[in-house]
């Protein structure tokens, strides 16, 4: 007994030592194959596999089966009684952004989320601790046409380039209703702008696409004239219209923030008029009213389980929304739109299952393969299948249980969150903190200003939903 205790202490010390040199730890993990044994594999696309093993090699899921043997040097995790779920895909996130809204203009398609990523945002680590591995980072909803999105894998602690989801189709944020029309509120210091009504929002979007069509024609004319050898000045490149041309050509996905049924119908018919399809409807609280029309258009829907009434257009909502749209044949996902909710998206799925009578797999699809389909990345993530990226998490219980906790989260086969490692490093962090606080530059200044109030200690939904925030902090 005593010797076991000593061994335990030694293990702790080793873990602490590895935490202290994170680069060494990472290099080791990168090269290492991992075998997860005896787990319940919630594959999502191929049912639940009891007492099964999953082998990770070179960042991919190499094998799934029973009684797999570990290659030389592989890390073996005994997951008896535990569950493995594909990494959760959050189809609507504003984590790791230094700016959320460019709220000055009604069309800000020239803005790129890619320009303002903050890979050090601690909320990313918290999302990993909730089993989330992929985020669709969206511009806010202040404008009828917002900025360009960025899909990322949460490689917390790595350079920004490593976050970018390889080959994820580009997207753009649209927004309908209260937020872009702004007739019921005003940002301090900002003048009222066009549009002021839902009609105006429609016209703003149509106008932008007409301009985009003209721009494309102008570029084509220039190329043709140049080819004929004419002396023509080069036309200006327009970063605002170029992404809209891509939308018209079907190369860029539209993710539209929306609430009310009639404006959703409006956007879908506007899209059909210009010959493209809305890729996802975000929030879509009244989607249950027009689920068949959404299915017919071919849009995906990304909703909340039971979050509503934070503004007038968000009142006519029911907790069966996601389930009803699913039954109508819509590809439905659940999103967080919030750093806090991102940590418990499994609970969102469980709630929809409870209210809407979905099957276990249908519920799990809402946070895994469905959002992956919506983002066009389902060939790589969203389910446990051989050949897919090893983005997954080991849970202590079934993820649809309130008792479930994430034990370990893998992204591309590397560990980015491990509960035991986290616990083990707390002592070392406390020691480091004590040392750092003693440093001259960190000592409180006599007569200095009082410490600032924490920026985010406020009601989460004070003015509209948090799509309207300007910056993350």
């Amino acid at each position, binding site marked *: 007994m005593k010797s076991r205790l000593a061994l335990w202490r030694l293990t702790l010390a080793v873990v602490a030592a590895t935490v202290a040199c994170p680069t060494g730890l990472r290099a080791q993990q990168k090269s290492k194959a991992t075998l997860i044994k005896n787990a319940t594999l919630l594959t999502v696309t191929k049912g639940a596999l009891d007492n099964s093993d999953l082998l990770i090699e070179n960042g991919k899921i190499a094998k799934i089966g029973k009684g797999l043997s570990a290659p030389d040097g592989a890390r073996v995790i005994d997951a008896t009684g535990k569950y493995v779920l594909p990494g959760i895909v959050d189809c609507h996130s504003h984590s790791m952004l230094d700016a959320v809204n460019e709220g000055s203009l009604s069309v800000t398609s020239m*803005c790129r989320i890619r320009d303002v990523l903050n890979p050090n945002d*601690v909320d990313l680590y918290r999302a990993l601790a909730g089993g989330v591995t992929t985020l669709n980072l969206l511009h806010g909803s202040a404008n009828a046409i917002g900025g360009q999105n960025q899909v990322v894998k949460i490689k917390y602690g790595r350079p920004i380039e490593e976050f970018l989801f390889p080959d994820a189709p580009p997207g753009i944020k649209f927004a309908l209703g209260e937020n872009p029309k702004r007739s019921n509120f005003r940002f301090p*210091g900002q003048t009222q702008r066009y549009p002021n009504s839902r009609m105006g929002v429609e016209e703003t979007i149509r106008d932008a696409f007409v301009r985009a069509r003209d721009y494309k024609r102008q570029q084509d004319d220039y190329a043709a004239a140049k080819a004929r050898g004419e002396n023509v000045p080069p036309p200006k490149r327009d970063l605002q219209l170029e992404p809209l041309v891509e939308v018209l050509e079907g190369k860029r996905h539209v993710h539209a923030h929306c609430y009310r049924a009639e404006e959703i119908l409006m956007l879908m018919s506007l899209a059909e008029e210009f010959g493209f399809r809305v890729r996802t409807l975000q929030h879509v609280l009244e989607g249950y009213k027009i689920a068949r029309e959404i299915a017919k258009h071919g849009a995906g829907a990304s909703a909340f389980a039971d979050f509503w009434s934070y503004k007038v257009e968000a009142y006519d909502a029911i907790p069966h929304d996601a389930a009803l749209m699913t039954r109508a044949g819509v590809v439905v996902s659940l999103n967080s739109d919030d750093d806090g909710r991102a940590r418990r998206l499994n609970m969102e799925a469980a709630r929809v299952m409870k209210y809407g009578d979905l099957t276990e797999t249908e519920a799990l699809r809402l946070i895994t393969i469905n959002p992956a389909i919506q983002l066009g990345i389902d060939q790589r993530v969203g389910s446990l299948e051989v050949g897919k990226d090893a983005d997954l998490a080991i849970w202590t219980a079934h993820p649809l249980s309130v008792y479930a906790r994430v034990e370990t989260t893998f992204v591309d086969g590397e560990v980015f969150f491990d509960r035991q490692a986290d616990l083990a490093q707390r002592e070392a962090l406390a020691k480091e903190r004590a040392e750092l606080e003693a440093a001259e530059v*960190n000592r409180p200044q006599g007569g200095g200003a009082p410490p600032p109030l924490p920026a985010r200690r406020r009601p989460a939904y004070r003015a509209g939903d948090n799509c309207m925030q300007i910056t993350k902090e």
Partner: protein
Amino acid sequence: MLKSTVSVLLCLLLGGALRMPTLAQSERPGDVARPRAYAIVNARLVPVSGAPIERGTIVIRDGLIVAVGADVKPPADARQLDGAGLTVYPGLMDAASHIGFQAAAAPAGPPTGIARATPGAPPPVAPVGGLVNSTRPDGFRPELLAAELVRPNGDGLEPARQAGFTTALTVPRDGIVMGRSAVIALAGESPRDLVIRTPAALHIAFRVVSGSGYPNSLMGVFSMTRQAFLDAQQYQAHWTAYRANPRGMKRPTDDPSLEALLPALSRDLPVVFHADSEREIIRALDFAQEFNLRPIIAGAREAEKVADRLKAAKATALLSLNFPKRNTAFAPEADPEPLSLLRARVAALGTAATLHRAGIPFAFQTGGLAPAEAISNVKKAVDQGLPADEAIRALTLRPAEIFGLADRLGTLEVGKVANLIAVRGDLLDAKRKMAFVFIDGAMINLRGSSVTPIELSGAWEAQGVKLVFTRENNELKGQAKLGDKDIELRELRLGLDEDASLATVRFVADLPRDGATKTAVFIGKYSSDELRGSFMADGRAEPELVFKRGTTPPAAAGAATDGNGAAVAFDFTGTWNIVVSFGPQSLPATLTLQQSGSDLSGTLALGPLGSAELRGGKVTGNRMEAAARVDFGGRSVELQVSGVGNGNSLEGSVTSPQGTAPFTGTRPQ
């Protein structure tokens, strides 16, 4: 004569619209024209370009270094300065600053474009927007040239000179694409004299400057800047095509904003990105890569984390000496600071050492810190492993190299510009004393406790001669007592000697000599307790007289301390005759004070400005503070007066937006 001196002084003190005067040589007491050549002898020389010379001489002539070495003989016509105990370095360069501009206190009107100084007109304010004809958003103004905005009496030049800086990169203050910087000398007679290189670099800070218009977010800032660079490329292509063959082509519009980006796009002009955090630096390098620009990172607090990328981009850094530190008080109820913040503050001190090890060239910039404090902060980087000679290099040669001026600045080498400093003590030690500063071969008057002109009033005694100086209505008067004879001293003048280390006095007196009365001129120098000098009569110098200050006048009422040495209430009530010193010049003034409890009221009579009411006067122990507002050249200037009383003497300073001037004074009984 007196009047013109006074206006010169006022100009110095209050920063009027007048050009900065040359330190009117004809009005300097006891002084001929400024020397053309100086030699600092027996000093330790740190040339930066080579090994230090433990004991050597440096000679400068007509603004250039003409000789440096251990066995250099000072030329006969050079003014010799004793360098014993001093170390001579090349003049320091601040690698990024906003100095030399006019105070930005005036409310900014509509964008005025680049105003040019016209004599007698109010000083131009840095424009807040782009040019009038620019259709670009606020914050986009690459057309702005710092060289058009610098003034010899501009903000921050004086403290920088006093601290030992002789050149600086100065950058238009605001905006996203902020404009183009200039390398300037920190002293000169006209704005054009200051400019060494313009434009030195294009400056970009990816930050939000607008509250409502586009762009009002960091995302929009990037989009706007990216669009502008694309437009500049198209602008150039359009013009190129048009110049080649205008027939049948629409005339391109002239756009000075886009025009200003072209040298950056062709890599002729480096682009300084103001970026501190790791991700800000990465974003800047990404942007530079996107448009094939030559990046320099200014601020660069977390540059150590991206050393690989900096190296790959062949980027250099202008490292801020304004190291982050906690500026809040302790509060038990407050959340603890994030670990990342605690780490970042400590890590920032080691950035310079890391960059040095990684072989990334960097120069130091003051980063908005007081120049003297910034130099002392270099020590913190040295403590983290930066070799001391590299630290000196980052203040001298490196910035010159980064901006392509190493052929004329940055080292003590023959043929280079005579920008140099002589320091008593370690340059990086906060206790150092700047002994000499030369800019373009001209000696800068240094202020500080050792060079504040000392009040001459009182009695001075030498062999059988007694001099008594008194002040009446701000006018210094003197009498000599020879035996029982009282002789009036005429044409009495005070000043500072050339190296500003001693006060000078000059007067004329009729002396009994050889049974007759002869007019003699006395020229002397004095410290607080000794006055040395000699009379000259008939063109012949008499032996030197050494005066000692006579017994101090009997202690007046209101002594500063009681028997136990504790401060007791001091009563400032009365009329104080004070002399405000500005460099070698002085300006008499009168403070009329009325104290009631700890409140102080009264007036400040300052030369021809008339008298100004004191406001908010407060007395703490024997310290007084008050504010006054005077009109000068149509401008209202706010002055802060503070002083410490001791018996019937008062010492303190007057602070204006242009700087601080010390004063001393007495209260006649």
